[in-house]
């Protein structure tokens, strides 16, 4: 178990009591005006650290939409609590008093039209009261117009890809993989604080700017979800959806894929880093110079060793989850590459399946990788483990195929 997970039930109870006493220090006007008693919020996780093992409520909201969601949830809890006390107060009074064992004689009434009409109409109006603020929030959530920055995110099995489409940072593009080492997942080394919620390349956005996020998927359904931002949107292959957020203060906000997408669904987190606009400008400049340095002349001829070395890296980042490090796959579920017909046959077929995927199977298209990456990984697969095809795929061949 991790270092934060040692407490028992008693401590849970103690901390719940404490949080009831000191909690609610974040109550906002809207909820306060309706409830007026936020200070003793029934369950408030506010004021606790983000990774609190006994967090009872939604995470601290960081956008206007997330704030509205938080407040509406609090309001609904209070309404439900009031109804709960009303209904079950009556029922448990009845259970205690109207029992045969205390000699209570049964009455014989069996309907009252007036009462029945009253308790049909009152809930209706309570519901209207709940729906009203929700309607306003829904309309606001849908307003993705005039963003400062537009980022496209693509769900892959099992990572996220980001392309900065418009606004400052336009042209930046990267993949974001889980950064937690395999050893921690397999309990071979101690789990660290952000276990399963850390990535190699976070999405960086400036605070105070309206960010529109366009969401799609490459293979199966995924969902892009960052709780603190109040955004959850399914990523659908072949279709585009969008959402927006404006983050109030700098920080690192973590989320996860929220739609079952296959075996590593639990291992494709999302990390959004919100920074001051100046720092954002700096980050953009760094990314641009990095990508300029990374531009490779596709007509360059690579040696087998260069391609294999690069290919092994690409394989570890993209292929290993299914086909496994030893190339044996998982029998019955994911095909083996070691000794497979594709990896030992003509290279055209091999390149085709990597670039275009295979319909009806879990093999997705990997066209989004660069020419060098595709050439490298195919070369690697054909010459790793027991495979000895001996041939080399050059980036120029891939580049040619794209035309």
């Amino acid at each position: 178990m991790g270092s934060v997970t040692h407490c028992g039930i008693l401590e849970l109870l103690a901390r719940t009591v404490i949080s009831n006493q000191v909690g609610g220090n974040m109550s906002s006007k809207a909820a306060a005006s309706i409830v007026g008693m936020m200070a003793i919020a029934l369950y408030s996780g506010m004021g606790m650290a983000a990774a609190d093992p006994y967090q009872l409520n939604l995470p601290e909201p960081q956008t206007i939409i997330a704030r509205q969601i938080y407040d509406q949830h609090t309001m609904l809890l209070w309404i439900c609590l009031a109804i709960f006390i009303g209904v079950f107060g009556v029922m448990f009074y009845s259970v205690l008093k109207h029992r045969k064992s205390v000699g209570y004689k049964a009455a014989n009434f069996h309907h009252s039209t007036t009462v029945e009409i009253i308790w049909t109409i009152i809930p209706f109006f309570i519901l209207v009261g709940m729906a009203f603020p929700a309607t306003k929030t829904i309309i606001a959530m849908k307003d993705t117009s005039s963003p400062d920055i537009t980022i496209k995110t693509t769900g892959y099995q099992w990572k996220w890809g980001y392309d900065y489409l418009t606004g400052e940072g336009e042209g930046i593009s990267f993949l974001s993989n889980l950064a937690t080492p395999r050893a921690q997942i397999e309990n071979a080394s101690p789990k660290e604080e952000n276990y399963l919620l850390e990535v190699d390349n976070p999405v960086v956005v400036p605070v105070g700017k309206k960010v529109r996020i366009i969401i799609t998927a490459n293979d199966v359904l995924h969902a892009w979800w960052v709780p603190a931002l109040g955004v959850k949107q399914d990523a659908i292959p072949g279709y585009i959806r969008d959402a927006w957020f404006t983050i109030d203060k700098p920080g690192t906000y973590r989320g996860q894929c929220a739609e079952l997408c296959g075996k590593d669904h639990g291992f494709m987190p999302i990390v959004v880093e919100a920074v001051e606009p100046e720092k954002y400008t700096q980050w953009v400049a760094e990314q641009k110079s990095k990508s300029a340095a990374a531009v490779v002349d596709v007509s360059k001829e690579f040696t087998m060793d260069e391609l294999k070395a690069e290919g092994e890296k690409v394989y570890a980042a993209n292929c290993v989850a299914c086909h496994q490090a030893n190339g044996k796959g998982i029998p019955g579920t994911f095909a083996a590459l070691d000794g497979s017909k594709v990896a030992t046959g003509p290279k055209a077929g091999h390149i085709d399946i990597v670039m275009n995927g295979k319909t009806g199977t879990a093999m997705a298209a990997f066209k989004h990788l660069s020419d060098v990456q595709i050439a490298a990984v195919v070369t690697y697969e054909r010459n790793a483990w027991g495979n000895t095809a001996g041939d080399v795929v050059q980036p120029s061949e891939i580049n040619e195929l794209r035309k």
Partner: protein
Amino acid sequence: MAAVHDHDVAHAHDHHPSGMMRWMMTTNHKDIGTMYLWFSFIMFLTGGVMALTIRAELFQPGLQIVNPEFFNQLTTMHGLIMIFGAIMPAFVGFANWQIPMMIGAPDMAFARMNNWSFWLLPPAALLLLSSFFVPGGAPAGGWTIYPPLSVQMGMGMDMAIFAIHIMGASSIMGSINIITTILNMRAPGMTLMKMPMFVWTWLITAYLLVLVMPVLAGAVTMLLTDRNFGTNFFNAAGGGDPVMFQHIFWFFGHPEVYIMILPAFGIVSEVIPTFARKPLFGYSSMVYATASIAILSCIVWAHHMFTAGMPVTGQLFFMYATMLIAVPTGVKVFNWTATMWRGSMTFETPMLFAIGFIFLFTLGGFSGVICAVVPIDIQVQDTYYVIAHFHYVLVSGALFGIFSGAYYWLPKWTGHMYDETLGKVHFWLTMIFFNLTFFVQHFLGLAGMPRRIPDYALQFADFNMISSIGAFGFGLSQLLFLYVVLKCIRGGAKAPAKTWEGGKTLEWTLPSPAPYHTFETPPVVR
């Protein structure tokens, strides 16, 4: 099981086959009801073992017991088995046993079809379960089998699709039988508005089943052809739409939720008046509320898809329609409370489960209203909050209803009283461990734990551990139920015809155990 019917087999005039063939060939509603109930209990234990394996894996962060692929197979199969194997057949079992006895009919309308409806289920269940042993394993795309993920699966998915087809055919035949029986075979004098509530809820449920099971069959058939015959219903690259599957699936899926809860409403509406010794409050408003819930349930399906992306008007319509269901549901809860009010209550096990049902189902209703509100649903969709919500309505709702009904009618079925002390122990253990398992999952969902993940961030560790402990307690407590039932079948105090002082419906005019053939001459209801 045989002990229940030994006295019947001895009747020379019955001339039905004995041994295994008796059960294979039977057209008797009581035999078939018994088989449905045992089948569902076996499926309940099977799905339960899967649930416990899931909870064992989630006991601690990290991967310990199962790998992620198998974990997904378990969550998928747990859902399919519990819904199609445990809950639905259990209610059909109750319908078979009780509806003829409660309306004064000699048997079900289509006795041979009744046999066929049941005997389709075991092969379907075998087909579904054997998918674990084929290459690629069992379906692992969630019980909702959303494409394109479900198109990626191995042949286990095709087996599941065929199993769903067969179970759907069984459900449709069962429903036609129930509708016909109720509409045509009521005793003279029993008008529709004099029928027991359990019969009413089943009549409405059966209509829902006939309406939506073919829709599910259509959805999975399209999936089948997408998988095997190159069609592109749900493949965007071929001009299809993955979201269309969700619309069709949930057009079945949401009424399905009410298919699993309405008969439980019916059972509770029988049990509460009996043990409060007072007639059901607002009988006609109960009937209208049940019908309204059924109708509304057909126009709210897209609330399962708020995060799939929908026009704002779509989200608003489905939110308003969904919230509206709270009105008739509230009426039912108020009516049950008013039935208890100024009654003369005793708290035998069926009553305990019925009160537990109202209490916890209402909590599930509250979280349901919270999930209905689109902005909040955006946060809790596909998290443990939703898991908690639907287990409050399906376990402490549907399952508690089944337990309540089982204890209520066991004396009528077996002729013996069950062990009241053990029954109460079973109730309290179930109640405590259920809440230990599922209440904390609300917190997990709000804090951000997605559903269907085999491993989780450290902040979720403690509540998961509590939930897993609760789940094992809950699972083991159900073995006590098995023991109580077996003990009741084998012996116990002789149950009188009118087992419960407050029992008013027709089955309590029959001797206990109910003879093999009942109401061959219809009773007259005044």
